[in-house]
């Protein structure tokens, strides 16, 4: 029983205590206790992950805990990577949640509070599961508790209930897919522990079926288009600390599932799987960021950006699989490392962004960018923190998002020698997709920061906003520090990353290394984010000093009224809004987004040429949803109408169903025998 074991046990105990506190503690102090317990669970997860990444291993079997198969726990570097990410996010988000709940904000009901620690530990147990049944149990537990958390505020807003429905439906569909896939796999493997699965020899067709089913299931959790529709709803409507946990931690487990099954258990498999993954990743990245670019609700924007980032991760996974199938293990290792690193980076900055957005929501009561603005002066700390997150999310140097996208691009750009028509055609397209995604991400987060936080307040609520309590700021500060560390010293992660990659693909270790500057295996490109950041800071400061010296005699900086072409000072309503900022992009991508705009002009009664009022409405709905889901739902409705016909309440009819059922079954048996 080593560190990992103790940490796991501690997490279990803390979860129990958390549930207990949620039940017995008075409403006022309940969130503090539960939050503390959850944070403790997160720390435990972090410890487990770091220990696993530093080379420790842990295995356990608890036959009694589950009927039939029993529980198998095993923590390897791959699982450790996700444990560390999840644990870190949980700890920070839970601390933030304690502060968030102060002053009666956020949910404090018994059920919700009790669900929180259970959700936390189930997220830790999923990457630690070492058998199909164990994995499925924790997975379902995670799904149910997360559903409870999403529905926390359903009394307040009807949209929450709707989001809950979507989430419940899609997550259950996903679960069924995973269930089918893994049970099929286990049935042919003759055992449900991962060791048995690794050893199993399946026919290629069967392996393909298993992989597609599993991809669909885990893809739904990771918000892969077209299974993403629940994500922008649920992540936007959930309480902000929960949003951070969902968007920064839970989606990653979808990635974990695909890596575990696709690379580790199925051992790479054939190329078309990964072309599929690459294609869906590319589509998700582009579609997600396009929707984010035109979104005016800040949390919806962040949720769509999660779809984008998961798309990028799956794109790198696809590339890794293709390289592996093409017999280029080093490149495969690089691409997979890029995927894992991006999971970590995305978790860091997305948690920061969601918590910052939560602070804004808490302070102003609105998520609508067009009603915000001017927070720079009202909430300076939150603005700076959001700016850091935005820099990272926009994948600009020096930000941590840039590092992982750099790694991904390196693996894509140098793939041409890896040969094969598929790589030759797919890689340039992949590079183009990544590039366009990055560009749109820049535009998106400039919009979020510039419209939401800078300039002048567009509503009284934004004008009267107050800075968040220190607890929340501390949690966000920790996340920002993590972002900075990841951005400036990514090479420090080299060994851990290599271990995780090796655990997943048995690729040669040491794909990523170097000290101050990042060095890659097999590629001569180097990057030193730290030096870049230092250089930029030094150059900027030097410029400022030189300017002081050069402009000594200058009459000092004078403050003036805004220039409005000679008209009076412009009002806050004359500012650019999120909608107007995104309008050119929306128009360029008209064919993809298909925005609905309607202008109705109401003239005066006297003359139709005198315009009394012009109303302009524009909304961008999710096209995938309209095209794919609305018909399905309609069909389900029609099917539902058959119900009354079959079940009209007469007892005789029900008994008759039973009778005919039994006799029919007997008949079938008699015939088939």
């Amino acid at each position, binding site marked *: 029983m080593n560190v990992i074991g103790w940490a796991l046990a501690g997490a279990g105990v803390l979860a129990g205590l958390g549930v207990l506190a949620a039940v017995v503690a008075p409403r006022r102090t309940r969130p503090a206790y539960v939050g503390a317990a959850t944070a403790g669970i997160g720390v435990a997860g972090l410890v487990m992950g770091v220990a696993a990444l530093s080379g420790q291993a842990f295995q356990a079997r608890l036959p009694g805990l589950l009927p039939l198969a029993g529980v198998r726990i095993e923590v390897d570097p791959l699982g450790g990577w996700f444990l560390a990410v999840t644990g870190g996010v949980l700890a920070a988000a839970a601390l933030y949640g304690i502060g968030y709940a102060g002053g009666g904000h956020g949910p404090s009901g018994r059920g919700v509070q009790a669900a929180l620690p259970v959700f936390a530990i189930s997220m830790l147990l999923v990457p630690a599961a070492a058998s199909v049944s164990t994995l499925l149990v924790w997975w379902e537990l995670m799904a149910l508790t997360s559903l409870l958390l999403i529905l926390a505020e359903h009394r307040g807003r009807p949209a929450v209930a709707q989001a809950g429905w979507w989430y419940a439906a899609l997550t259950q569909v996903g679960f069924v897919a995973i269930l089918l896939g893994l049970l099929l796999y286990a049935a042919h493997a003759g055992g449900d522990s991962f060791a048995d699965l690794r050893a199993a020899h399946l026919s290629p067709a069967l392996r393909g079926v298993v992989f597609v089913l599993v991809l669909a299931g885990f893809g739904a959790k990771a918000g892969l288009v077209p299974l993403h529709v629940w994500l922008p709803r649920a992540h936007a409507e959930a309480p902000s600390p929960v949003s951070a946990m969902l968007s920064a931690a839970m989606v990653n487990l979808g990635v974990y599932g695909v890596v575990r099954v696709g690379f580790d258990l199925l051992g790479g498999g054939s190329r078309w799987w990964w072309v599929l993954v690459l294609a869906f990743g590319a589509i998700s990245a582009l579609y997600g960021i396009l929707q984010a670019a035109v979104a005016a609700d800040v949390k919806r924007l962040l949720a769509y950006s999660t779809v984008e980032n998961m798309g990028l991760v799956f794109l790198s996974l696809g590339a890794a699989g293709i390289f592996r199938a093409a017999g280029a293990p080093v490149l495969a290792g690089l691409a997979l490392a890029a995927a894992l690193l991006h999971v970590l980076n995305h978790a860091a900055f997305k948690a920061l962004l969601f918590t910052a957005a939560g602070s804004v929501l808490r302070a102003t009561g609105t998520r609508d960018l067009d009603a915000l603005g001017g927070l720079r002066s009202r909430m300076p700390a939150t603005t700076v923190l959001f700016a850091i997150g935005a820099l990272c999310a926009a994948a600009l140097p020096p930000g941590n998002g840039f590092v992982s996208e750099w790694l991904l691009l390196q693996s894509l750009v140098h793939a041409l020698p890896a040969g094969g028509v598929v790589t030759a055609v797919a890689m340039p397209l992949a590079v183009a997709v990544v590039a366009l995604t990055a560009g749109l991400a820049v535009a998106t987060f400039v919009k979020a920061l510039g419209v939401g936080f800078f300039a002048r307040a567009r509503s009284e609520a934004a004008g009267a906003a107050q800075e968040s309590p220190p607890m929340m700021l501390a949690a966000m500060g920790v996340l920002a520090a993590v972002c900075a560390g990841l951005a400036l010293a990514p090479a420090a992660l080299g060994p851990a990353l290599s271990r995780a990659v090796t655990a997943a693909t048995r690729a040669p270790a040491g794909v990523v290394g170097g000290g101050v500057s990042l060095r890659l295996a097999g590629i001569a490109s180097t990057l030193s984010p730290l030096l870049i950041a230092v250089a930029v800071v030094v150059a900027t400061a030097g410029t400022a000093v030189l300017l002081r010296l050069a402009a000594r005699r200058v*009459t000092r900086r*004078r403050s003036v*009224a805004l*220039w*409005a072409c*000679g*008209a*009076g000072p412009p009002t806050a309503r004359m500012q650019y809004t999120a909608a107007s900022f995104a309008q050119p992009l929306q128009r360029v991508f008209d064919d993809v987004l298909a925005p609905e705009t309607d202008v109705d002009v109401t003239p005066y009664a006297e003359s139709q040429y005198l315009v009394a009022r012009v109303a302009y409405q524009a909304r961008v709905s999710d096209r995938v949803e309209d095209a794919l889901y609305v018909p399905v739902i309609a069909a389900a409705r029609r099917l539902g109408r058959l119900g009354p016909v079959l079940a009209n309440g007469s007892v005789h009819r029900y008994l008759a169903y039973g009778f005919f059922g039994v006799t029919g079954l007997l008949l079938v048996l008699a015939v088939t025998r």
Partner: protein
Amino acid sequence: MAVFKLWRKIRRTGRTAEPAPPRPAGSSCPKAAALSGSVQVRHVDAGSCNGCEIEIGSAFGPVYDAERYGARLVASPRHADALLVTGPVTRNMAAALRRTFEAVSEPRIVVAIGDCAIDAGEFAGGYGVQGPVADVVPVDVQVPGCPPEPAAIVAALRGLTGR
């Protein structure tokens, strides 16, 4: 093709700018000393009949080419060192002119172009006329004429740039 036509025209036309006349003696404005060879100008039409606008246009056109002396028209008064104001200041433009003047950073120079700008000219006492430019903002340089010759405008600008 169009490009070749234009190229031939350019070759045939050659240089249209007239040789630079000798510089008018002395800087006509003490404030302009700091500018040293570069003055950005924002033009404000405070209610002119557009006669002066035409002359300003030709002053910056190829023939007189005020830009060769370091004067340039700019879009924002923030970028400007001097205002070229034309026309009698109408009641509706008075506030705008004052705001524009405020927007220019120190030291600001105001050049009144044309008789209307100097003493409201024809329109003095008109019901919509506030008065000459000097009533609204302090004027540093005056260019008389109705409308003034482009050469005169250029000379005034050279007085500012000192080239």
